Every structure is written in structure tokens, then in C-alpha cells.
């Protein structure tokens, strides 16, 4: 039987993989993709609990998270395009304009 534990562990696994992607990769676009993975893990958690409690609040929260993810991805990718136009690089290590 699938209990709430299964969903918790699954969402934790996706979250951890997303965090590993964020802290380990150099390519900023892949970092953004890992952030999307993190948001999805949270969504799975919310919807699983919404089913457990029989309330729709978790799903509403998920809808807002998806909306916010869209907005953040759009702005983040706009920043990447603008930066690439200036410095010709998408690697996070090389974005060190402010360094002394």
C-alpha cells in the first residue's frame, strides 16, 4: 500500500537531487533547471498531503508555486541572456565582475 511515507521519501529524493544540482554544477542554466526540480519536489509533497487530509489547500498552493516558477524562470533566463550578451559565458565561476 502506498502511504504518505512513500511520497515524503520520493519528494525528499527529488529535492536532494535538485540541491546537488544547484551546488555542484557550473552551468547557470542547469542550476536553474535544478531549481525547477526542487520546486517540483515541493509540489509533490503538497499534493500528497492535500490528498491525505482531503483538503484542496495544498493543490491551490501548488498552483501558485507553478505560477511563481514560471515568473522566476522567465526573469532568470532573461538575466542569463543579458549576461551572455555582455560576457559570452554561462558558467557561474566566470561571473565574477564584483570580485576585487
Amino acid at each position: 500500500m502506498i502511504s504518505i511515507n512513500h511520497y515524503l521519501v520520493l519528494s525528499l529524493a527529488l529535492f536532494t537531487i535538485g540541491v546537488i544540482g544547484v551546488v555542484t554544477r557550473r552551468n547557470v542554466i542547469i542550476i536553474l533547471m535544478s531549481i525547477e526540480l526542487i520546486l517540483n519536489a515541493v509540489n509533490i509533497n503538497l499534493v500528497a498531503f492535500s490528498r491525505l487530509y482531503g483538503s484542496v489547500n495544498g493543490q491551490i498552493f501548488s498552483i501558485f508555486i507553478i505560477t511563481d516558477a514560471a515568473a522566476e524562470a522567465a526573469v532568470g533566463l532573461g538575466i542569463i541572456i543579458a549576461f551572455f550578451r555582455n560576457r559570452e559565458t554561462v558558467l557561474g565561476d566566470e561571473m565574477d565582475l564584483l570580485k576585487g
Partner: protein
Amino acid sequence: MADTILFYFFGGLAVLSAILVVTRRNAVHSAVFLVTALLATAGLFLQLRAEFLFIVQVILYVGGIMVLFIFVIMLVNLDVAMRQAQFNRAWYVWGLLAVAMGAQVYVVFHYARMQTSASFFNQAVAPVEQLEPNTQLVGQALFSTYMLPFEIASILLLVAMIGAVVMAKKRV
């Protein structure tokens, strides 16, 4: 039994695709695997009988956000980036820290399960036949209780749209 098979199928697909997302050298391959991961998540939503959320995930995330990602990957010339080292210099340190964080959270779950009464974690989920149609529920809640966040979300999207256009415009 169908629920179990579906959960393991979609869950396994999601985890496998996620691992492939963070390890590919080619950004387009990563994007394709992220699409697979998002579709697997949508499948999980469907398995949890949240069909409106399933379709919203497909339309917005897979059909909108990932198309945007792929557009940007194609507009940005990644040939140089593909030949460089893909991971940070001390990637095992950071990776280990992330895994440690995950293990910490799992330990919290474990102790919570030990301390709370078993009935919480084995709570009977409402049987499927008694569920109201998901779209109706979400629609009613979204337009009555959550009207203000709905309007704020639309303003947020407007601001994000303007911001993205301004950031990505060419300075003539």
C-alpha cells in the same frame, strides 16, 4: 494495486530523470530529461487524483517553462561551455553536504514517525469514489477563498513579463 504500480513507475521515472538532468554535459539533453521528470511528476499528480493539477503542470511547466528553457539554450551559444569542466572544483564537498542535508531531513521523518501515533502515517486516504471533481473544487476555492492571491499572482506574472522583456531586449 494499479496505484502501487503507477506510483513506482512515475516515481522511479522522476528520480531517474532528475539524476540525468544534473549529470548531463549537453544542456539540451538536460532539458529533455527535465521534461521527462516534469511529466513523471504530472503522472504522480494524476495518480493522486489531482487531475486539474496534472493538466496545469503539463500546460504550464512542460508546455511553457521548458519551451522557454529550450529557446534560451538554443539562443545562447553553449559550444564553449560544453567543452569546459561541468562540475565545481570541490564538487564532492558540496555534494556530500547536500546528501547530508537530505539524510538529516529523513532522520526527522523517521523520528516523527516513531513519536507520532501510527494512525497519522497510516491514515486512511479518502476512497476515490467519494472525491468531488477536482476541477470544481479547485475552481471554487481559487475564486472564493484565494481570490486575493490569485490577483496578486496575475500582477506578479505581468511584472515578470515586463522584466524579462526589458532584460532580454537588445540595446539598439
